[in-house]
């Protein structure tokens, strides 16, 4: 039984992606019998290329995706190089982990409320500049998509930072830093010349996942991105939601085009890797030490703090807006506060939280069970999967959602499962599984194997060893993985919308739907609601082990590493 779990897990991730891609590819070439498309044709492509501003949409997606990824990677690497092993670094480590659980849409709304012409930053400046009304420039939804890039960067920094953090110990960066320092290298230069080459291979897949995401993002683009024209992924969603079903064919070819854009972005990135790899090798050997890097070090810290601060302040301003009464420009705070909207929305809030849980809990429990099964199987057969297996885990994160979600919808319709809770949970599982795996696998594999061997030699069966030794020892890890999984399912916008065909109103679909309306108080409420479940999850992951093992000093976070 156990040995079939890895196959089942892979099927749960790769199956929907493949079915979805096929279900997108066929209509893209005119084949979708349910809508009368029975013979292959290139008409969808002709219709697509006749769309006004298509080239602008393509450029927006490609350039902004690459820019957001590059900026995030540079800030994270600079910060790690400059501050590793210092108190500043540990502070950032503590700050960024909870920020990772903030859904993209929430962070984007928070940022919008900060930087908008009537946002908090403008209000602060207005105090000194004497403005009495908001400046008339488009800061959010700007035509170049700068606000969208900023929104993506604030959310990708914590993810890349934590992935880099996981790679640091294996590369022995602390000792390497000592060596480069004694050889007279500046902290940043020493790190880039000696540590980065060993770290980069391990953070490459996460970076590519960030690139794929940024190039095809929908929810953040709806909130912060330009509208005339919008990035391609947003327009595809528009076409898919059009009452005129004929648009579905064109939307499918656009989804295939989106996939090609992501592949092109990855190609450009890998080309950049190659060039930097070659020039970097010469640079590493040229002996320049750049000892005076204080300015750059401070800059990297400032950038990291701005990125983290934007998310945290964003949450604060969402809270303020959600309880704001009358709030005139340029007042820093509303004249009075009121819970009237919270009370009015009470039933709706409860309903959308319930729907979110209804999808999230089965998805998270299934994912954790499958991943634990895979890892336990590794222990029983005595070896892990090959190095290539990690690519399989990343497949759902490397293929743009919009490129296979519509096809998956077509597929579910074909087998009569459209709009069912089961189908939505399966769609969420595709994205929950990789994150739960990434979160669980390292600590599980790091557990001293002699605990298990000892228990076996004491006469315990492998099943008993799993339930009574390994699982209890990993309580904190498993709960944290569950919280990560919960944060992932709560944040899902497209899978809920497309596979559920609008039937499932989660906190995230509700929040993003509010974006066009511009009711800041309602956005404040639903933006915060998105935070409730992930936050509760992480609180449980901290509290439950603390209570369960309050008399077991050996189970505290410190001694478990």
């Amino acid at each position: 039984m156990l040995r079939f779990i890895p196959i089942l897990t892979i099927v749960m991730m790769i199956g929907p992606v493949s079915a979805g891609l096929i279900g997108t590819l066929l209509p893209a070439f005119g084949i979708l019998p349910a809508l009368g498309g029975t013979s292959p044709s290139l008409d969808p492509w002709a219709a697509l290329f006749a769309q006004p501003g298509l080239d602008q949409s393509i450029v927006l997606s490609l350039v902004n995706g690459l820019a957001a990824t590059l900026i995030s990677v540079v800030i994270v690497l600079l910060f790690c190089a400059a501050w590793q092993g210092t108190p500043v670094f540990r502070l950032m480590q503590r700050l960024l982990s909870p920020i990772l659980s903030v859904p993209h849409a929430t962070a984007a709304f928070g940022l919008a409320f900060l930087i908008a012409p009537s946002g908090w930053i403008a209000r602060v400046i207005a105090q000194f500049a004497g403005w009495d009304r908001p400046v008339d420039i488009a800061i959010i939804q700007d035509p170049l998509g700068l606000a969208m890039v900023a929104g993506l960067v604030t959310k990708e920094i914590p993810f890349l930072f934590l992935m880099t953090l996981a790679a640091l110990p294996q590369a022995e960066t602390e000792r390497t830093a000592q060596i480069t320092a004694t050889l007279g290298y500046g902290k940043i230069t020493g790190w880039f010349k000696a540590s980065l080459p060993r770290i980069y291979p391990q953070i490459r897949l996460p970076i590519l996942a960030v690139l794929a995401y940024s190039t095809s993002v929908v929810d953040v683009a709806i909130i912060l991105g330009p509208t005339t024209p919008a990035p391609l992924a947003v327009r595809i969603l528009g076409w898919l939601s059009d009452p005129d079903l004929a648009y579905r064919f064109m939307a499918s070819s656009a989804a295939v085009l989106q996939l090609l854009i992501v592949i092109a972005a990855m190609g450009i990135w890998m080309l950049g890797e190659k060039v930097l790899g070659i020039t970097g090798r010469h640079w590493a050997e040229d002996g320049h030490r750049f000892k005076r890097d204080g300015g750059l070090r401070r800059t990297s810290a400032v950038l990291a703090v701005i990125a983290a601060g934007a998310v945290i302040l964003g949450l604060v301003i969402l809270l303020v807006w959600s309880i704001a009464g009358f709030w005139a420009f340029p007042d820093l705070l509303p004249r009075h506060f009121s819970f009237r909207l919270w009370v009015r929305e009470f039933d709706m809030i409860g309903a959308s939280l319930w729907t979110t849980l209804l999808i999230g809990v089965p998805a998270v429990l299934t994912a954790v069970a499958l991943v634990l099964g895979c890892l336990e199987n590794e222990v029983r057969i005595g070896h892990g999967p090959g190095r290539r297996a990690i690519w399989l885990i990343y497949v759902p994160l490397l293929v743009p959602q919009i490129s296979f979600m519509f096809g998956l919808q077509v597929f579910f319709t074909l087998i009569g499962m459209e709009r069912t809770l089961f189908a939505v949970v399966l769609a969420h599982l595709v994205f929950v599984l990789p994150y739960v795996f990434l979160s669980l696998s390292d600590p599980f594999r790091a557990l001293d194997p002699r605990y298990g061997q000892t228990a076996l030699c004491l006469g315990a069966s492998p099943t008993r060893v799993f339930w009574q030794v390994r699982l209890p020892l990993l309580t904190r890890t498993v709960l944290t993985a569950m919280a990560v999984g919960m944060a992932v399912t709560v944040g899902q916008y497209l899978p809920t919308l497309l596979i559920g065909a609008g039937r499932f109103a989660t906190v995230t679909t509700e929040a993003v739907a509010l974006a066009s309306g511009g009711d800041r108080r309602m956005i404040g409420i639903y933006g915060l609601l998105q935070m409730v479940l992930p936050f509760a999850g992480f609180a449980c992951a901290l509290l439950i082990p603390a209570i369960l093992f309050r008399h077991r000093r050996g189970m505290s976070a410190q001694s478990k590493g």
Partner: protein
Amino acid sequence: MPTKGKTGLELRDVRIALDGRELVAVNLTIAPGEVVTLMGPSGSGKSSLLGHICGTLPAQFDISGQVLLDGVALDGLAPQDRHVGILFQDDLLFPHLSVGGNLAFALPSGVKGKANRREQVEQALISAGMDGFYNRDPATLSGGQRARVALMRVLLSEPCVLLLDEPFSKLDSELRGQIRSFVFDLARKNGLPTLMVTHDPEDGVAAGGRLIELS
């Protein structure tokens, strides 16, 4: 402890190789109550030999020869069915269980009755000079106490052989002598054939039995 019908641990021409390189080759019989010390530098495959006897050695090792315990071949048996007890250099007490919980974990399920099981664990604690420690958190014990609980845990699982993998190397020198005699005395009293691997010559002297050098 009766030793009738017990012939001890027999390693019949056991050879362990990894990637074509032979790590260890032994031909050895250990009688009940006898302690045999295997000495050798690290990397000489001592721990692999113990892993093989336990049945926990990963599949990539090439193995030939036979392991017999009281005349019964162990090869192919699952680790939990072998009745082989092992102590590592770390005590590996389960940090999520109490001291008593750790001991009860090892007690065979055939010992029935809650009170009876508790009594057996308490007896074990008394014989380790640790009565009243049932509910203690293992993390609060001293190094010597932890070592003694670890040994009692192994003995409660009713092993037919005792393997020691450098069990004293992490104890400070004062404690080491004390724990050594505690372990060897109990092993002899229980009539257990005992195989110890170590790179500390003093361990071998203290064991007082045969001493075999691996190259």
